[in-house]
């Protein structure tokens, strides 16, 4: 079932939680809604679930406007961050609850509960109460309860946040696999960009209630629309340096008191002529720079600290009081105060407008 949001807005008094959001989720697609705390992603999810009523705009399931449809008629399953299991019922009763409400016959309920519990590998826990389960088990129960009514839409509200790191990784792939198998349209809210990138077919990035970008993970990583998206996607985050665009000898240069880097022709061609002579924000990811001898680099910098990550080292440099982070193969033999050269991969340069923070390299 496809889900469409058209100019969706939600106001709480004077607070605009969701601001004119439009996007379309295809049938069977796994879409992540990503953003920092308070960006409106959970509110949007609750609007889709029917818990909140929109202030303006439309929510469509298929071709049908569902703005005024109560949650119980929307054929939606939802998994909450806190799992929201019913403490006074057993696991069996928790999972069976949606079917019990539909007054389905007892043997049908029993069959379906055992089925979905077996899929979630919790068939042995049916007689326990939620308080007797571990976090991971509770989560599976919550998922089973969401799936049992065979919904047309699955909603997730940061379901993995309360799990330890190892379990989180395990559940990530399990949920993704389950979704692919069942082909249920799924919308997944998270603040963890790794989760969003690894699990989703497309990612919607939110900030302050506004939809910043909605695209496949690769596109968001390689070709971000705004500085916010560029900074939020990818870990460690992109470096940003204030530069000025100058024309020299027919080429465009990114000029900084400490360096000048020529912009490759394909990028320079995309720039608006009026930009030349004006300020811009240069963006470059830590993995797209190399540490070399001071004379060979595009710029010379002083080492601040080395942060070992195991597989590689994150090397922090200081450039005019700003931190510049570069990923280098481990182990990196440098000590604080040493001067190094940094070479920038030209094809991975990004440019942003200092006021609008929009990318200058996109149409």
């Amino acid at each position, binding site marked *: 079932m496809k889900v469409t949001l058209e100019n969706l807005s939600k106001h709480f008094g004077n607070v605009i939680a969701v601001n004119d959001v439009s996007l379309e989720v295809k049938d069977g697609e796994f879409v992540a809604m990503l953003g920092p705390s308070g960006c409106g992603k959970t509110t949007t999810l*609750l609007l889709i*679930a*029917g*818990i909140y009523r929109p202030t303006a705009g439309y929510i469509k399931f298929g071709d049908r406007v569902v703005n005024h449809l*109560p*949650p*119980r008629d*929307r054929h*939606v*399953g*939802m998994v*909450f*961050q*806190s799992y*929201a*299991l*019913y*403490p*006074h019922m057993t696991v069996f009763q928790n999972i069976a*609850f*949606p079917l019990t*409400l*539909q007054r389905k016959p007892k043997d049908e309920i029993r069959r379906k509960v055992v089925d979905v519990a077996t899929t979630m590998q919790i068939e042995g826990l049916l007689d326990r109460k*939620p*308080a007797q389960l571990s976090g991971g088990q509770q989560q599976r129960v919550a998922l089973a*309860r969401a799936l049992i*009514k065979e919904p047309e839409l699955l909603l997730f509200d940061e379901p993995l946040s309360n799990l330890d790191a190892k379990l989180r990784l395990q559940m990530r792939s399990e949920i993704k696999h389950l979704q692919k198998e069942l082909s249920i349209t799924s919308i997944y809210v998270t603040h963890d960009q790794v989760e969003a990138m690894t699990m989703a077919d497309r990612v919607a990035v939110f900030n302050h209630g506004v939809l910043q970008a909605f695209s496949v993970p690769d596109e968001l990583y390689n070709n971000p629309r705004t500085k916010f998206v560029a900074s939020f996607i990818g870990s460690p985050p992109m470096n940003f340096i204030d530069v000025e665009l100058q024309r020299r000898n027919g080429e465009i240069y990114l000029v900084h008191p400490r360096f000048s880097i020529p912009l490759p022709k394909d990028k320079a061609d995309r720039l608006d002529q009026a930009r030349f002579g004006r300020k811009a924000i240069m963006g470059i990811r830590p993995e797209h720079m190399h540490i070399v001898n001071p004379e060979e680099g595009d710029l010379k910098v002083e080492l601040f600290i080395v942060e070992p990550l195991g597989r590689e080292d994150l090397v922090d440099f200081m450039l005019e009081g700003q931190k510049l982070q570069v990923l280098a193969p481990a182990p990196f033999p440098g000590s604080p105060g040493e001067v190094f050269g940094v070479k920038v991969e030209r094809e991975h340069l990004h440019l942003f407008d200092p006021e609008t923070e929009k990318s200058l390299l996109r149409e």
Partner: protein
Amino acid sequence: MESDVSQYTSKAEKTVIYIFLFIVTLPILVGYVWLAISSFAPITYGLIPHGGLTLKYWNFLTHTLPQRPSIWTVTLNTLILAVGLTVLDVLISSMAGYALSRIKFPGRKGFLSLTLILHAFPSVTLLIAIFFVLRLLHLYDTLLGVLLVMVSLQLPLGTWLMKGFFDNVSWDMERSALIDGCTRLCAWWKIVLPNIRPGIAALSIFAFITGWGEFLIPYTFTTTDAHATIAVFLQSLIGDSTFVSYGQVAAVGLFQMIPVIIFFLFTQEYLLSIFSGGTKGTA
């Protein structure tokens, strides 16, 4: 809790605490002891019975005292009022408390303040006004009238308490219920209420004990002997212009108290949760 205290207080400290508690509760204990002794002895000086022990003061259990209703009629009335108060108070308070906790309606803030003010309001000042209202509704000198007045006066506290308990239930649980297929009412009844069982128990106990011992309202708004409650009956034993039989008063008083004490002994854990302000042990 007990074990926590034991870890950090020495035996000497504990002894001092217990001695202090004993001294403070002594007057109350002495009162109860006097009551028990007096109901079995013709004359009691201080706490010492004189003239042997007798059961004659307990005759009200089997005989109807002159110009008074049977104790069993009176007990039945008291039971009806106490149970009626409990059921109505809990039912209405849990619905009102839920609405106040969950639903944003115009005037909500004002309503909450009103609840507090009403609870603090001295009901005595309303007696005459209530008299007129009951007369108008033809409910004067009826158990129903007394019950309605008692419920109205208990509702502010009940509503406030219930709202507090509802506030402690997570919103996600209700949202999950709504998505699973519940209407608002179904979510309230099947999911939220079971999770504030301690709160409901606490309010029920509080309402029952209050209703059982209520004196002023039944006394003021009933005139017929057959509509009296135990408290009113008790008052009639003292309020006569004739010689007061304190042994009889003590016996009836003890009779009124016993169900409450037994009830309280078994349920005090729940009652204390009112003061600690919420449920514990739920997610």
